[in-house]
């Protein structure tokens, strides 16, 4: 023990405590390295604390953050040398005996700067006195403008808060005005905030030269070079050991004495490739073509053909839509308002995949499409320009309750921005960035500062102090052709639609009246019309008599249509007809010019770190930047306005997107390559698709991952080329049968000693059911297909006029109305996006597939198709074969043929007077079988 006397006298920081700190805490909290923004080398910096803004020393031991952290609070972190009991004792005595130090604590400069008051003014005042509105001619966004004031004189008098108009207005509650609090979503400043404003004015309303915290050419004290050594933060390494996927895999298999499984048979490969690339089995003709092909390269040809199919984009675009959290509704509030033309983004994604748009370009458009071309100043708008704008919808897909009349305050807006950062991090960067919103990331070297630098990247477009309402999130840039078509086609249809809509309203009321007349013949006609009026009143504003009337109506509405009196059924028929007419008029209409987009407006508010993530606890002013750990920490982030002579924009997102798509970016290519691998092989080379950070899974084949990433970039970021590379590998063509040996030596299939059996996801299951039964409508794109909810909560999908359905990617995704069939098979709930689908096996699936009406109807259609393709002489043997070929893309084995023959015979007997139904039951059973649901 160096300081025996410490027992008697009060310990002193420099003598007793600092040596302990230097020894055990110094590696992370020194002048040079300041994890969590914390430096422990002097009393001054200890008193200042770290990013939470809390001092480490307090009146009592329990309130002292320093003590809490070292006494069981996880510091020093696991794996590092811990404090000994003696060392803890020293700190404890020091804290309880007055926390003394020899050096005087430098009095921190307590003078207030403009950055102490600007966050308050932004939060409370600038909605009415800022960029958009300048009530009374007052703009409060800068001290200068405050001093200038408006028509009533300066807003502040330096040195004299009592005579400063802004203080007077705030203290008398004149500002913000009572009746406008909710209109503009502001809350009154708290007393502490008013004190700060007063103090700053009293001190002379000084403005200091303060630069935002951004990356400089100096080393970053918050992130060390050691932090940068995690594999995923270093650029992919060029490896030369092997020149193919198979080479890398074989090496690891060899090491444990395993070889790849035998190649799967041709039919299996056909079905596997079809389901993988287009999400549906081949047609009978296509299956025969490949099955009988004499060409040696039939397989490669098939892959090429599938990649050229328009259905490819529908399948692979859907994976991207999961990542973006695509939804046709806003969510957040019960009303779950629909997002008009969100579908344009869906179509953009599908088209991009079909066109094999280079992935780097695809990302740039989605992150900064509005900063690529100054559309507003272009003489002619092209579709590509419009697509750039549509692409930015990527950043607008999260749950957004800010359309609500009470949920559009700054905290809710910050939530929306956080969702966008979450989506970006989890889908593109493989980082859990959102963890750094309230404090530095617990595991990864992402300081809280970096989260806010990233937020600053988006500030020009997503500004919580200058928020766009739902109505104002649309641009109407469109090609001249589109404009012309809308002008020609829509006006007469709109007239028609208006007429039909009013007719429909009348007809619906007629149904209600008829229901009342039929079921309550004694009710007065006044009460009936009063019922209709009551329906127009929000349910919580109805008077009791109104509630009773409405309830009477609701009770009889519950009666199934088939039990309703004739007059009601007739009235319902009129409604149905009008609905059909409306649907047909709508389908003839040209889509609106509107585009749902995110765009920079060139005037970002300053960005502050928010202590503990709280909206009213501003910390350091920061500028735009990227996570330091992904750079050398000494590279400034340079954003320049892209259109200096044109539309004002910051260029921040464009600079970010360009950085993200550098060829040697450590994460971008790796994350994408891993995801494509996941879809083809069942798991990623890195199992945690969204987390490549310290707590993510280690890659099973790191060299292969890097090799693929480099190949991908070298091939021009072509996703289709990546498919070819993977699908043409021997590894992909393996059988899914698990040998005893392979199970023993590679139980989780981490070495890829076989192909994994996969269950179809919700979309491919439903699309395959529709395809096999001939009920698939091949039209693509455009407004989403309607869904309907019945009284029991069954959510179904409305068929088209021809009684068919389009592919599942075109379904309306309303967060509160997920189609039951899809939900049963793990269709995701977007929160805010979906990184990978879960695969459940629950009894609701058999109930849906066996007992449900819809699948039965499809089985009937399937059976009809089978019958129609048979010739007169065909027997049950022919039936069984055809069923197998259409549903499973193969012929039955002898055993299966015999089973089918026996089953059809028995079923025919048991159906008695409806023997023709036997094939329906057989087909229905086939659609229920594991063979249909699972892909080898």
């Amino acid at each position, binding site marked *: 023990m160096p300081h025996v006397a410490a027992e008697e006298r009060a310990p002193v920081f420099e003598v007793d405590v600092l040596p302990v700190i230097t020894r055990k805490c110094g590696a992370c909290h020194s002048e040079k390295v300041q994890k969590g923004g914390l430096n422990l080398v002097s009393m001054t910096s200890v008193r200042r604390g770290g990013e939470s803004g809390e001092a480490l020393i307090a009146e009592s031991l329990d309130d002292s953050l320093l003590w809490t952290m070292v006494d069981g609070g996880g510091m020093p972190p696991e794996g590092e040398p811990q404090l000994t009991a003696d060392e803890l004792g020293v700190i404890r005595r020091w804290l309880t005996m007055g926390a003394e130090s020899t050096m005087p604590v430098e009095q921190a400069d307590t003078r207030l700067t403009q950055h102490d008051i600007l966050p308050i003014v932004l939060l409370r005042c600038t909605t009415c006195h800022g960029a958009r509105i300048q009530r009374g001619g007052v703009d409060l966004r800068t001290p200068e403008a405050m001093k200038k004031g408006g028509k009533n004189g300066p807003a502040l008098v330096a040195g004299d808060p009592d005579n400063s108009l802004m203080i007077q207005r705030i203290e008398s509650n004149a500002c913000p005005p*009572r*009746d406008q*609090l*909710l209109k503009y979503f502001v809350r009154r400043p708290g007393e502490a905030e008013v004190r700060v404003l007063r103090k700053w004015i009293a001190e002379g309303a000084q403005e200091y030269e303060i630069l935002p915290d951004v990356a400089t050419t100096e080393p970053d004290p918050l992130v060390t070079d050691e932090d940068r050594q995690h594999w995923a933060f270093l650029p992919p390494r060029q490896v030369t050991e092997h020149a193919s996927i198979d080479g890398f895999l074989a090496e690891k298999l060899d090491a444990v004495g395993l070889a790849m499984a035998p190649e799967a048979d041709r039919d299996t490969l056909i079905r596997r490739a079809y389901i993988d690339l287009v999400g549906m089995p081949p047609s009978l003709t296509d299956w025969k073509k490949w099955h009988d092909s004499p060409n040696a390269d039939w397989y490669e040809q098939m892959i090429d053909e599938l990649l050229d199919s328009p259905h490819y984009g529908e399948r692979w675009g859907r994976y991207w839509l999961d990542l973006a959290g695509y939804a046709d509704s806003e*969510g*957040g*509030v*019960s009303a779950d308002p629909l997002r008009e033309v969100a579908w344009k983004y869906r179509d953009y994604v599908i088209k991009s995949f079909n066109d094999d748009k280079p992935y780097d370009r695809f990302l740039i458009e989605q992150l900064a499409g509005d900063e690529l071309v100054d559309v507003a100043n272009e003489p002619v708008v092209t579709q590509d320009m419009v697509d750039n704008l549509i692409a930015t919808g990527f950043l607008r897909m999260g749950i957004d309750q800010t359309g609500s*009349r*009470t*949920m559009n305050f700054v905290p809710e807006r910050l939530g929306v921005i956080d969702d966008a950062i979450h989506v970006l991090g989890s889908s593109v960067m493989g980082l859990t960035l959102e*963890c750094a919103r309230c404090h530095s990331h*617990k*595991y990864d070297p992402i300081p809280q500062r970096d989260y806010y630098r990233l937020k600053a990247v988006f500030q020009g477009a997503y500004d919580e102090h200058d928020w766009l309402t739902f109505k104002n999130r649309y641009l109407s840039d469109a090609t001249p052709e589109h404009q012309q078509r809308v002008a020609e086609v829509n006006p007469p249809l709109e007239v028609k639609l208006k007429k039909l809509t009013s007719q429909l309203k009348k007809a619906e009321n007629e149904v209600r009246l008829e229901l009342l007349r039929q079921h309550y013949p004694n009710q007065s006609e006044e009460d009936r019309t009063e019922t209709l009026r009551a329906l127009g009143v929000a349910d*919580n*504003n*109805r*008077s*009791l008599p109104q*509630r009773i009337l409405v309830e009477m109506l*609701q009770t009889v509405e519950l009666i199934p249509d088939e039990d309703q009196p004739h007059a009601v059924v007739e009235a319902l028929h009129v409604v149905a007809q009008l609905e059909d007419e409306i649907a047909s008029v709508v389908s003839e209409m040209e889509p609106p010019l509107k585009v749902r987009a995110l765009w920079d407006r060139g005037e970002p508010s300053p960005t502050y770190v928010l202590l503990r993530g709280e909206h009213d606890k501003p910390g350091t002013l920061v500028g735009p930047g990227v996570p330091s750990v992904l750079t050398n920490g000494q590279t400034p982030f340079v954003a320049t306005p892209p259109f200096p002579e044109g539309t004002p924009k910051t260029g921040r997102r464009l600079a970010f997107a360009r950085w993200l798509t550098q060829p040697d970016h450590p994460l971008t290519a790796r994350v994408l390559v891993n995801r494509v691998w996941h879809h083809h092989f069942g798991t990623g080379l890195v199992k945690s698709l969204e987390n490549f950070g310290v707590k993510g899974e280690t890659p099973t084949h790191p060299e292969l991952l890097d090799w693929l990433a480099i190949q991908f970039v070298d091939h021009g970021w072509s996703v289709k080329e990546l498919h070819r590379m993977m699908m043409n590998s021997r590894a992909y063509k393996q059988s899914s*049968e698990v040998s*005893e040996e392979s*199970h023993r030596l590679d139980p989780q299939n981490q070495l890829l000693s076989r192909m994994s*059996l996969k*269950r179809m996801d919700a979309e491919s299951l439903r699309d395959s059911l529709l395809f096999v039964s001939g009920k698939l409508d091949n039209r693509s794109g455009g407004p989403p297909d309607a869904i309907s909810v019945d009284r*029991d*909560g069954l959510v179904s999908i409305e068929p088209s006029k021809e009684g068919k359905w389009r592919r599942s990617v075109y379904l309306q995704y309303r967060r*509160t109305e997920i189609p*039951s069939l899809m*939900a*049963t098979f*793990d269709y995701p*709930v977007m*929160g805010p996006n979906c990184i990978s689908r*879960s*695969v*459940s*096996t*629950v*009894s*609701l*699936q*058999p*109930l849906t597939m066996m*007992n449900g*009406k819809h699948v*039965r109807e499809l089985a009937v259609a399937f059976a009809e198709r089978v019958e129609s393709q048979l010739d007169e002489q065909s027997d049950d043997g022919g039936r069984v074969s055809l069923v197998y070929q259409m549903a499973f893309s193969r012929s039955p084995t002898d055993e299966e043929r015999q089973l089918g023959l026996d*089953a059809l015979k*028995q079923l025919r007997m*048991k159906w008695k007077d409806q023997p023709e*139904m036997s094939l329906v*039951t*057989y087909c229905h059973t*086939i659609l*229920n079988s*594991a*063979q249909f649901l*699972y892909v*080898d």
Partner: protein
Amino acid sequence: MKHNRTHPEFDSSGSRRDFFARTSDGLLGAAFAWLFSQEMFSGQLAYAEEAEHESTELRQVYDLKPRRPHHAAKARSVIQLFMNGGPSQMDLFDPKPYLNNMDGKPFPGNVEEIGNQGTDDIGVMMGGRYKFARHGESGMWMADILPHTAKMSDELCLINSMWTDHPNHDNALYKIHSGRLFMGYPTLGAWTVYGLGSESQNLPAYVVLQDQLGPPKNGARNWTAGFLPPLYQGTPFRPTGSPILNLKQQYEQPTEVTETARTLLSSLDDIHRSKRNYYPELESRIESYGLAARMQLSASEALDLSRESKATHAMYGIGEDWTDSYGKRCLLARRLVERGVRFVQIFMEEQPWDSHADLAENHRGACLRTDKPVAGLLQDLKERGLLDSTLVIWGGEFGRTPTTQKSANGYSGRDHNMQAFTSWMAGGGIKGGTTFGKTDDFGHKVVENPVSVHDFHATILHLLGLHHQKLFFTRSGLEERLTGIHPPRVVTEILS
């Protein structure tokens, strides 16, 4: 069909983990996942006492096996009578003579403290609309529109000092159910079954009974598992027809044909499986078809109210116009709890208590529908000795303002009040005949013994034998709890 329950794949904890990690978030997934876990873990009805409580920290397998609580439990199950829309505290449970005297006069304080949607539509003070009297041995105050509940007052503990953080229905509903103001967090029921599992073998652990007039505001988000594994979410029983979608065949087909089809399917699947060793999911899928069939029977039995006596029906008001629907759900709740269901929520359609207009008449209607069934439930549970182990909770998402609010037909109702409201609890470990907490002279704000939503939840968990701090789930490296970051207070004063 070959059923090999001791198949090695099912015995290794690894594949079990894989299997449960994959359990779904399908609409009714929880029920079936539960049935599965029973099937796979032996099929014996095990009681919590026999099972060690595994610390949630160490939990690797997600299932609904009964778990030992953190400490001795007072209540084994919960029935939550959720009063959507926000019942008025000063009209039902918390009499305010001073407010009554001020009826028609302006609010004496700052009106900004009342208005949620600005101050334009705030009217004048509004006295209580019903007569109050004292009831039971404790002399508990209650309004005369709750005559049946009043008779049970010695079982109740009124908490008059509840408060919440948001004046909007949506957010206040998220808060009261999940402890957070936003969507996507697990509800109290989900946390409960995550912590304790279930004691029923054939029924879901967490059941939701909806009104046939429609779903409540916020729909399925009132019983979501949030980020917990989906098997912990509530299973809604449909109010009309078959309780679970597609439980019965939705098309015509003779039974013999269906049987033949089943046999055919198992033959097809046997062939399929015979060539595919080491794929436990194929086995699970086959099991799921068998369990789907069994589900039909057990659910039907539990739901069959005709097995109850006429006297019981009468006690719940079943067969009477106003009370039939709510009474049936209350009786059903008792039958479910009796069969080991852990958590039952009963909802009404939309938000019948939300009385911005015509409060006097609207609350009368809501009371008429629920008062007798609720009292019947308490009485019935008591008679059967179930009240000691069943915690009954009554209340909404917030309370109502002391002032009137302008609506379509003038000033006749009250706005939302997040600063004070009343909830009550009864049974499982609650000190009956208690009135806890105080509000100001208007019933506007809590002035004594405030109970936050987190406190409320911590108290309920405590009665169930769970400690709010020990019950957590690790997500993105963070320990998530029902009661949030700041420690709540278990309201020990109301415990027996």
